[in-house]
């Protein structure tokens, strides 16, 4: 296992496509379709990287980032935001 990933997006197609891609690369991938669901999964287990959309219904990507920081500030979580034209790494 190379590492644990969490893919968060409110669009199911994107989530499934990313999951397929990363699984093929050999990562262990968890998915969540909303910020709230993602937060539950973060609480339940450790992730190396979280890939999240910025604009989602309910909790947005940035809010999710804040909550993840609160849960475990020491944990080096990378959040990649694919919703804009240039991929931004924001953590």
């Amino acid at each position, binding site marked *: 296992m190379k590492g644990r990933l969490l893919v968060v997006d409110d*669009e*199911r*197609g*994107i989530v*499934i*496509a*990313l999951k*397929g*891609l990363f699984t*093929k690369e050999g990562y262990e991938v968890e998915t969540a379709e909303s910020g709230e669901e993602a937060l539950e999964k973060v609480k339940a287990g450790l992730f190396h990287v979280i890939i999240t959309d910025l*604009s989602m219904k309910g909790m947005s990507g940035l809010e999710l980032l804040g909550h993840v920081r609160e849960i475990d500030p020491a944990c080096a979580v990378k959040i990649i935001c694919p*919703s804009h034209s240039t991929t931004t790494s924001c953590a």
Partner: protein
Amino acid sequence: MFGIFIIALIIYAVVQHRKRSRLCWMKRGGGDWSKWNTEWSKFKNTDWSKWTDEAQKTASSAERFANNLHSKIKRDFETRMSRKFEAKSARYDRRMRARFNRQTQKYGGVSLDPENDLPPPPEFKNDAERQAYERARKRAAAEAGFFVHLMWYGIIIGFLFVINLLTGGFGSYPWFIWPALGWGFGIASHFAAVYGWRWVHQRVFIAREVNREVLQEKEQLRTEKQASLDELTATFAHEIRNPIAAAKSLVQQMGEDPTSHENVEYAKVALDELARVERSVSHLLKYAKEEDYKFENVNLAWVLDGALTQMRSKLEANSVAVSRAYLSGPTVRADADKLRQVFSNMIDNAIDAMESRKDERRLEFAIQNNGNGMAAVRIRDNGCGIADDKLGKIFNPFYTSKESGTGLGLGVAKKVIDSHRGTIQVHSTVGVGTEFILEIPLSDAVRDAIDAVAALNGETAESADSSGDARATQNLNGQVDIDAPIVNPAATSSETSRARN
């Protein structure tokens, strides 16, 4: 002084003219009336019908031109502009009237408008004295008018005589053609002096000013349109690019590993995403299409009833109780089909909003007159309501709170209502309900009738926003009025979107 000079000029001119005419005739054989007879028969036998036809043609073409111009102005200038126009014209009229009064005071010491008279009316001991004063005043006014007219008459006829003297005559018409022409020109110039400047002012100066303002409005509208288009493009790009990216990636993975058991699911998801794109595009096309509107005078109640009939099955399936607080609606200027679509859309939204409610789903309709030349349709549900922060966005294209919505329903509704030059307002309280108020302009005939009633009530058309007007129109249209909103206005937030063009 000037008048005396002119009269002296006329007398001089008449004497000179008579002398010369006599001399002329005497020279040709001393009182030879045969010439008079030939001239008179020439005048009598001239085919004047050609001239009257020409005049009629000119008049009718002018009338047509005026009608065209009138309808064009009516069509092109929005209500606010024409109101501005009317206000300016009224101000100009007042100024002209004041000037006229000042001038008549100068010439006759009296005015046609007692309110603008400088000296206050004298105190009268009895009615007889008052009547005598009135008689004298009227006579003085008539005399003033007569002298003003006489001045123009003198100027014109004097001018004609001078020309006649200088050129040796326009031809040999009978002597009374000169006073007749002079009289005609005198009257014409009299009216031109009174009305001409008003006409020029209205048709040229005010029209120019209004045109400039219309252009400015259009320019502003264009920038706003551009801004909203940019926003729309950004949203739409997001709406399309994401599903396409997902589908592309899924198909790519299917191609890389054709035997994978996950391919079935991938194909299904990819298809869903593509269907989403297709739906978005078709809705956008519907939204963006510049459709032709067929504006007719339609009964608002019929349109609303039509929408209710259209939605009946869905209303019954969701067990929604409908109450209609109107008997007959006013006649509005609208495209019935488009308006019915809007109402159906509103009803559809209301049903969706009431889904969370288990029982007592209520949908209320009312038609009333707001007294500003608009008929208002109120659609009120007791659904889940809209939160304050979302209230401002609901008319934005692609804004939706539903799982399967494209967010274009209310956008289309707003566009249609804007094209009708109406307004949409929404009041909502979360958990209590939502009320949409759609205002649609009344047809011209109804509006004229309202103005007439307002005039009877002693109100001017400009101040018709007051409650008296609304009262009058309610009786006129026989509609039921519901004034108290079910949602408390203090506890609600409202978002008004005003039609612009």
